[in-house]
């Protein structure tokens, strides 16, 4: 084991932050972030189905109950509305709940508590009862899982006044965005791209505020992951890595693709979006959720509003279809694949005003 890792494990033990750059999987990065959040705030609590003793079905909370005790990290009965409703009361009592719903599709039973309570309590109570609830939702598809284990709920969440929504695309982002989200005074839906949990990447621990993230942006902004001149690909979560692949392939054909990782899905970093497309004059937005009324529509409309004079083609949306998320055998047909994204790029590049 490298010295850096040994040091950082020693650091974890007494709760002080890690240092330097390490290669970690997203699962490890999220685990580290939660560890530091628990160490830094005695009011922070982690709970949900199987996140105590088991450490979560994805092991994101691995080891945390052993370290912080069953008062800080605990299993609940199997009821998502219960988990989120309980979070409201804990927040009222001064805690910072970090609940988990086990899979995206099981956020639905909790929607009433999320929309009508968590998102509105600060407003209803006129700011006297803030809701610092950080809801972790393993999200999106791509792992050949059973039904309801591959859903993309960002459009739903982003439409709800009172919620903020964020999704990291790599381990570095995961670490910093979760630390940032879990120290905010407002509710944040934290959408973890489950197909990326086991992918490794460098995490720079020294950028405590996320400010040395690839593009040097603030923790609340979008990131240009790859600069390009001909077209902007806008994506989040697991689709960012795919768009970066697409950009490499397109480069072979001389097409210079800019990839924008939106990161925050509410509020959207409109300035970054508009700046990118004003430059490239063309945009394709990519997401796994169904097309109709998906977040791609909002992104497209923000681009159109902000770049109407420069836009060379209508914004393309390469998305999941308007069908229920299919079983594993068909998921590669459903999730935007490299070819479909390339077709989208081709369409915006070849568009000619008729």
């Amino acid at each position, binding site marked *: 084991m490298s010295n850096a890792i040994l040091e950082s494990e020693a650091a974890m033990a007494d709760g002080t932050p890690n240092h330097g750059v390490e290669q970690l999987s997203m699962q490890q990065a999220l685990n580290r972030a939660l560890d530091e959040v628990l160490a830094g705030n005695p009011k922070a*609590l982690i709970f949900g189905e199987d996140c105590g003793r088991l450490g979560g079905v994805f092991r994101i909370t691995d080891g945390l109950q052993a370290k912080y005790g069953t*008062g800080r990290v605990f299993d*609940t*009965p199997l*009821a998502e*509305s*219960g988990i*989120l*409703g*309980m*979070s*409201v*009361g*804990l*927040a*009222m*009592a*001064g*805690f910072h*709940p970090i609940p988990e719903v086990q899979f995206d599709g099981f956020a639905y039973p909790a929607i*009433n*508590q999320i929309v*009508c*309570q968590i998102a509105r*309590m*600060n*407003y*209803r*109570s*006129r*700011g*006297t*009862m*803030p809701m610092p609830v950080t809801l972790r939702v393993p999200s999106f598809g791509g792992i050949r899982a059973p039904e309801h284990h591959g859903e993309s709920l960002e459009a739903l969440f982003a439409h709800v*006044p*009172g919620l*903020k929504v964020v999704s990291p695309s790599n381990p570095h982002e995961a670490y910093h965005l979760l630390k940032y989200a879990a120290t*905010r*005074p*407002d509710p944040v839906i934290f959408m973890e791209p489950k197909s990326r949990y086991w992918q490794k990447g460098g995490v720079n621990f020294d950028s405590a505020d996320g400010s040395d993230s690839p593009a040097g942006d603030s923790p609340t902004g979008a990131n240009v992951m790859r600069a390009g001149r001909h077209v902007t690909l806008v994506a989040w979560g697991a689709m960012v890595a795919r768009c970066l692949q697409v950009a490499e392939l397109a480069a072979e054909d001389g097409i210079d693709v800019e990839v924008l990782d939106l990161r925050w899905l*509410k*509020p*959207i970093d*409109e*300035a970054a979006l508009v700046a990118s497309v004003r430059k490239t004059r063309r945009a394709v937005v990519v997401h796994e959720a169904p097309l109709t009324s998906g977040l791609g529509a909002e992104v497209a409309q923000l681009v159109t509003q902000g770049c109407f004079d420069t836009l060379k083609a209508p914004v393309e949306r390469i998305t999941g279809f308007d069908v229920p998320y299919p079983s594993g055998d068909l998921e590669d047909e459903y999730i935007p694949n490299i070819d479909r994204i390339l077709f989208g790029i081709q369409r915006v590049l070849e568009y000619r005003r008729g």
Partner: protein
Amino acid sequence: MDTPLTPTAGNDAGPPSEPRYEQLSGLPAEPLTAGQLRELYSLMVAVRHLDASAIAWQRQGLIPGYAPELGQEAAQVGSGYAVDTARDFVFPTYREMGVARAMGVDMVAYMSTHKATWHGGLYDPQESRLAPIQAVVGGSVLHAVGWAHGQTLSRPADGTLGVAMTYFGDGASSQGDVHEAMNFAAVMKAPVVFFVQNNGWAISVPTERQVAGGSVAARAAGYGIPALRIDGNDVVAVVEATRRAFAHCRAGNGPALIEAMTYRRGPHSTSDDPGRYRSLNEERDDAGEDPLERFRRRLLADGVADEAFFAEALAAAKSEEEEIRAGVQALGSRPGSEMFDLVFQETTPALQAQAANWREESEHV
């Protein structure tokens, strides 16, 4: 093979008017003093008068709507009276005006919700120890469990716990959230009192077509939660039961449930027309004796109060109502900017832009 199975008992908790104390073990509650009894009466009169007046306010156009609690004064004042506002916390529905009054909440700020000034009411919930008014049926029962579990997590040195009390109705007992709350509370031994006002109706649906088995209290047994089904129209019984439930929770014994049998004597709300689903005769037969009148007779019989006291209490109620009405009348609308400012603790650029746009376009108006 077609012999009916017999129910496993526990679903027949007796008629509403028979209190069932036998489930309370241990010492009886300390008796209420004469002063406390009179205080309870004064509160009930104040609540009765304000409630009746609020209906009049609605008819006069002062407020757009109201959910009367006529007939539930004993249940509400009695339970609210048992709260220790130094350490407990209460989660109301939309019909707990009497609880708020008994807890000493600013009643202009409370009634503002019915003036459509602000949904949760204008009172400060943290200071009042009363959560914002809740319009989702069953919506806040889980909040009470979470708050109560928070007390367990930060248990003070003396070992006694702050207790959460959550109100809900016979109708709300059908909601999944209420079940989840009871199960969570019992699994976690959370100090929470589930206070059910079974007032016979959920808008037009009577309890017998709402609550299978007939009793919400009977449900508690399934979770191992001790439950009391009490005469919710007897204010003294309500105070005593609530105090005992609080003591139970405070000592770390986990949750308790009280089902206060009462009757919604008025309409569901000022826009409801009960004549469509129950007759005046049914109302008279089912409602039982007026809880206020009943308490008054008892106080007289026991020599705790006399006619002069009652007259005084009524006069006080009247002047209180006048003051509240004046306050409600004087309430201006909240500035539209609060729509934007109170969404988050940390606002967003998009919201700021929308607020600026709103300001600009509404100033042109």
